[in-house]
């Protein structure tokens, strides 16, 4: 697996790169790739998303081929786009979503932040009531069983931007960040290290390559 740190990169630029990689991974000319980045401020909305969830009329959200509704990306948020060939990893989209959640939950736990799934609402949420809030959003697109898009984890994100939308289509959905939840300091660069360290192992544990498949490592 190839892991690339793209730094701060424009959403459209990263999108083009993803498309190119998806085509390559599908035909076997490219290895599975993990892209780590931050985006300059941008709102995106899944193809099935409802425009009513954009509350601020001055926002133009980019409509993209992922699941889920509207979300915000911006500096201080770790954006991770894994380009993974699910054709050889069990062809199960729900399992892939659960894997992404598990990865985020474990990394949050390593930082001392208790996070959890909420049944029926894909994403990662903080556990401590009464202030359970959304820590990471997930939205995936799949072409020929190769994944694109992925998850966005709020590290030091400016959360006020989320008040301009109904995040993920949920009215008044509280959003939080690792900075607010953990004791001490965190940074996107530090989180990139955590993801780099744990992604591939957990992927192979939870979505192992089918026996007989070719392992591109």
């Amino acid at each position, binding site marked *: 697996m190839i892991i690339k740190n793209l730094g701060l990169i424009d959403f459209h630029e990263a999108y083009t790169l993803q498309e190119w990689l998806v085509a390559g991974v599908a035909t076997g000319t490219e290895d599975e790739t993990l892209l780590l980045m931050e985006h300059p401020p941008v709102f995106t909305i899944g*193809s099935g998303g409802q425009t009513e969830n954009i509350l601020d009329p001055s926002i133009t959200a980019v409509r993209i081929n992922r699941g*889920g509704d509207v979300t915000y990306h911006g500096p201080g948020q770790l954006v991770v786009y894994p380009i993974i060939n699910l054709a050889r990893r069990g062809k199960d*989209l729900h399992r892939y979503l659960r894997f992404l959640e598990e990865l985020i939950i474990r990394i949050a736990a390593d930082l001392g932040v208790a996070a959890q799934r*909420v049944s029926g609402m894909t994403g990662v949420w903080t556990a401590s009531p009464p202030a359970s809030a959304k820590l990471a959003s*997930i939205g*995936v*697109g799949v072409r*020929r069983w190769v994944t694109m898009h992925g998850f966005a984890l709020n590290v030091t994100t400016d959360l006020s931007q989320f008040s301009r939308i109904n995040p993920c289509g949920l*009215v008044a959905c509280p959003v939080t960040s690792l900075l607010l939840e953990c004791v001490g300091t965190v940074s996107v660069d530090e989180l990139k290290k955590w993801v780099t360290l744990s992604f591939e192992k957990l992927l192979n544990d939870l979505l192992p390559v089918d026996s007989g498949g070719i392992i591109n490592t």
Partner: protein
Amino acid sequence: MATEITMPKLSDTMTEGRLISWKKSVGEKVERGDILAEVETDKANMELESFSSGILLETRVKPGDMAVVGTVIAIVGDSGEAPPPVQKTTLPSAETEKQQPTPAEQVLKGKEAAETEEIQESVKPAEQTSAVTATEEEKASPMVRRLAREKGIDLKRVKGSGPDGRILQKDLDGSFPKQAEVKIENGKKPTIEERELKLEPPKPVAEGEVLALSRMRAAIARTVSRAWQEIPHFTVTVSINMSEAEEVRRELKESGTALSINDLIIKAATMALVKFPQVNNSFAGDRIRVNGEINIGIAVSLEEGLVVPVIKGCRELSLKEIAARSRELVGRAKNGKIGETELSGGTFTISNLGMFGIEEFMAVIQPPQGAILAVGGIRDEAVVKNGSIKAGRVMRVTISADHRLIDGAYAAQFLQELKRVLENPVSMLL
């Protein structure tokens, strides 16, 4: 050769998917490998590829609609080729062929779980027409067939004005009224559940109209289906004389504390749960979760469904605090201004249909909770006390309990305690 395109199974746990958009339009040429549509399950979208070449003859699911895995959603074939009849749809297993719902039914399957009989009935004519319109007996283009199906028109009853009696689009205008519309207009009164869910009179649902599940309806459908399939429910009912409770409520109101009968029931339920804590437990697969907190959910009906805001930490709250919290949460729930955190974490639920004049009913447990209390209205009834008949104010409550967690005698004792508290309401003020 026409090829049927079905809703793909994108996960072992996927039962249905949402058709997000068609990437080709009917009549357009399709090459093997072209993307036909985009399909969503959970928060993942899949681009649906065509495995055959030809013309997209027909699409059977509209963008935004849910379809059960395996349902035929489109037909790709040669130009001029009529789409095969819907009845001949090849199904995953031959033995289940007879029981398999038609596509119209399949699309609506999730909805049926939560909607009332009237609504289900109204879709039945649609499945007949969709089957009829797709047969090859009447000459019509796929476009006209689709329009007819959408409008709920039986092509058998339309006279074609085209060559060889071919039915043209204009022939569909001024066609027969839709059976379901007529049916609803002279139809039965809405059922109780329907009134619970929709306080406004239900809007007529046109025959053949296939409604996408709203997020809320989909969530309700998922929850109640799971509850009904997994939980062995049993119910116990008790009559409670509410005269004293009404008196206490009046007195408190006069002294400036506004509270509802439901607030008294929440407080009484909390006290009964403290004494019979098993009713507050949750079922967690191979173990029982003992909930330290008593978090009581209140079912609130909205036009588009229902939500259950949760009053957390009831054990520590006074009657007055419960009333204030309840009023605030219910108000915000009705205005759609309620957050997910306030809808989660419940350990027990109360559903009150008393305001509709209901005497008693049974509610469905919200997993993983162990029980739900269904509360009827307070009525004047003759009560025999010490050998003489007196007028009483009687309310019936029914507990639905998960038999894996709670046994009948325990549920009965819980209700006995609830009755004791409500009939001696002063204990709630202490």
